[in-house]
């Protein structure tokens, strides 16, 4: 990884940017299936932005000609796929070039960049933002979506309005009440193509040229309470994702939260059906999505908690629920002890749908119940504990395997050894009778402020595979995935060098997942911001 930056400011002109470079010198490893196809692999990005009072401009250079393993074939290449200029005057703002945008929760439009997944679905075209009066934001846009190194999909156009009623009505402000209403519309115009009909040899599908999607939402908050209700619908959009179904797509979300004085509560429910919306109807993989449905499951950071991550089922649809309660026990209380204690309970549940709106389908897709405790015992020692009970429907998410039930235990301790020296240790254990059986993970991390950090870790498949897994041709692996890392920070530079093995598996962010094959070798990463 490599990053670099510098800032220049003169007469209101600001130059900023960043460099990020991740590198791998791969080695073959027959026991894990890691392969060496090239001697050197790198994903390198350089961003540059220029800002002034009336005009902003930016560009991004990407060098992905020898990419890290696991990205789609079209990911390979290099060039300047992002370039934009933005004019700002009064209550308006016009962007020409490439841009990112999100309407509401993203049900009908969300373009974003997620480098870990290889996603950049920016639009190339124009975007107009207007604030005609206080409390009103209007957006209009049209453009072609980036598909790696081309802009070859349908034309995506849209409009969004967000009205903050509390800015119009003083009495709402007096009552500490905020209410915003939003509405969006997105249209995809995609030319016809020849797609033969499955099960009807000699016939092709009659494909719609236009697909429309719309979204309405209301967000109300009063004091510590807030609620969001949102509904979106999509017209006929037969695609590879939905097996060329002509059904409409729907998604509805209800979310409520409370947050005050150390207590936070979140309750959410979502039903989605046939909401995969891409600018190209006949692609698979993770590219060309126009929309994004927010995940209702936690993106875990602990290695074993993230071993079986859930991917949102956009086309098949799902009922998803999430509840979370967090509480900070105060310092110097019986439970909180001398330094206080934080407890968080999170539950998420995802289930198949049926045609009838409020009926569940027969399958559970995912379930995650986890409780996390974090407590500082002494001035120099802090301990975090987590227990997680998980059900993971591997056939639905990964298209193979079995339902996996697991219990995961995590202990994460941090000790202040000296004013500039910290030691962090993680111990994790995943118990399951399914798939490849139990896993253990250990990590030791020594930080020597302000420059150095040393990390050693090992992920071990210590259990035996289940009978069903063995019957499907698997074997007990009992493999160790070890890793050693050295990190050096100076100023806004960060350099990390390492050596190790990584297992094949899914890397997920926000419910979107990418399969990453096993790797082994030397890694180097560099980041710099300016």
């Amino acid at each position, binding site marked *: 990884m490599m990053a670099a930056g510098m800032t220049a400011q003169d007469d209101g002109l600001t130059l900023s940017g960043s460099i990020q470079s991740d590198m791998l010198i791969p080695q073959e490893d027959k026991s894990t299936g890691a392969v060496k196809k090239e001697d050197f692999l790198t994903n390198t990005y350089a961003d540059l932005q220029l800002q002034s009072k009336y005009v902003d401009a930016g560009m991004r250079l990407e060098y992905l000609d020898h990419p890290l393993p696991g990205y789609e074939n079209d990911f390979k290449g290099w060039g300047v796929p992002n370039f934009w200029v933005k004019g700002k005057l009064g209550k308006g703002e016009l962007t020409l070039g490439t841009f990112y945008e999100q309407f509401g929760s993203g049900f009908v439009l969300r373009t974003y960049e997620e480098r870990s997944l290889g996603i950049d679905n920016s639009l190339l075209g124009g975007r107009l933002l207007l604030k005609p009066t206080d409390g009103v934001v209007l957006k209009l846009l049209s453009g072609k979506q980036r598909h790696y190194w081309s802009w070859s999909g349908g034309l995506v156009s849209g409009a969004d309005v967000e009205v903050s009623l509390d800015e119009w009505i003083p009495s709402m402000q007096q009552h500490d009440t905020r209410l915003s209403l939003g509405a969006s*519309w997105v249209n995809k115009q995609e030319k016809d193509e020849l797609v033969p009909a499955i099960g009807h040899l000699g016939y092709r599908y009659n494909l719609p040229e236009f*697909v429309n999607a719309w979204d309405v939402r209301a967000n109300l908050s009063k004091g510590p309470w807030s609620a969001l209700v949102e509904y979106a619908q999509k017209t006929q959009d037969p695609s590879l994702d939905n097996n060329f179904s002509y059904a409409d797509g729907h998604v509805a979300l209800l979310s409520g939260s409370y947050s005050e004085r150390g207590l936070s509560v979140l309750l959410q429910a979502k039903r989605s059906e046939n909401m995969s919306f891409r600018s190209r109807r006949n692609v698979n993989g993770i590219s060309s999505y126009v929309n994004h449905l927010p995940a209702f499951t936690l993106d875990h950071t602990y290695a074993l908690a993230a071993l079986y991550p859930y991917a949102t089922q956009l086309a098949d649809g799902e009922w998803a629920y999430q509840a979370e309660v967090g509480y900070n026990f105060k310092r110097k209380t019986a439970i909180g002890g001398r330094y206080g204690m934080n407890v968080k309970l999170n539950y998420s549940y995802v289930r198949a749908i049926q045609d009838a709106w409020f009926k569940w389908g027969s399958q559970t897709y995912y379930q995650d119940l986890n409780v996390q405790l974090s407590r500082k015992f002494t001035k120099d020692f802090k301990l975090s504990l987590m227990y997680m009970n998980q059900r993971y429907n591997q056939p639905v998410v990964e*298209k193979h395997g079995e339902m996996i039930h697991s219990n995961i235990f995590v202990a994460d301790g941090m000790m202040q050894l000296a004013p500039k020296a910290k030691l962090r240790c993680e111990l994790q254990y995943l118990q399951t009778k399914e798939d490849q059986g139990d896993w253990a993970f250990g990590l030791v991390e020594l930080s020597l402020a302000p420059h150095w950090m040393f990390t050693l870790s090992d992920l071990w498949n210590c259990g035996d*595979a289940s009978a069903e897994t063995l019957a499907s041709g698997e074997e007990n692996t009992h*493999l160790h995935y070890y890793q050693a890392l050295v990190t050096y920070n100076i100023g806004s530079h960060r350099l990390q060098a390492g050596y190790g093995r990584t297992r094949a598996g899914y890397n997920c962010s926000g419910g979107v997942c990418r399969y990453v094959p096993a790797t082994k070798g030397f890694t180097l990463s560099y980041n710099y911001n300016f």
Partner: protein
Amino acid sequence: MKSVVYINEVLTVSLGRIARFGLLSVLALLSACSHIDDDERLIKMDVNVPTGDPTEVTRNVLLEDFTGQRCVNCPKGAKVIDQLQESDFGERVIAVGIYSGPFGKNASGALLPLSTQTGCDYYDHWQIESQPGAIINRSGHVYYSPQDWTREVMAALGGKSAVKMDLEAVLHDGNIEIAVHSQGYGDFAGKLQVWVVEDGIVALQLLPDAPEEDPAWKGGSDPGYVHNHVFRAAVNGSWGEDFAISTGEQKSNRMQIPAAEAWNTDHLSVVAFVCNGKGVEQVVKGKVKTEK
């Protein structure tokens, strides 16, 4: 009562402002859509068929299906191949199932019974991204949608070839003896590739879980699944041997391969094709006969 007045105030002010900024006009755009009724969803396609002209040779179609025993979606691809092969032009569609890739291996990278290292080499060479994926006549493009397979096969059926081929394959003393006969209807230079394939193999296949609407579907893993046109081995090297032919020329290429113990010799066939950088010029398939 206070709250009713309050809500009324909110609605009055809000709707007034919304109307003022003409935002409702955006809603009018929602009516511009392309709705397709049930009876308009399918359009008849033209299918290219041989003209019957004796001076021309039509090109058969080679469909290389990259599949795997752990690939739950791959049986869908196999169904599309069945459908193509059961059609009027089915004899001209020669499918080969190349068991390979992540779904052809277990978690520690070991090959499953129907996978071969040669198949995995092909998988890597063509940079297959997901399974099922198919290459039609080695056009250089991988198609991941079975709908695309049908489209590309139908488009390819109209092609003319510079080479007419047929083959003989006989099992003799545990060896499959193969003779590939070619006749030039034009000039061609490239490679001749010969493979052994097997039909009717009963072996494990992972399948999708049962969808709600189809309770008869057997989900999970099926140890009794029947695999057809399974790639078993390359007879003359993974990438074939040099081959050239001119107009009017006739030639025969002979080769042999030992029949492996795992193969059911009653269900074996040989696939032979000639190809170059432009794709497959001709492909034929013949059943392996047992010498009496």
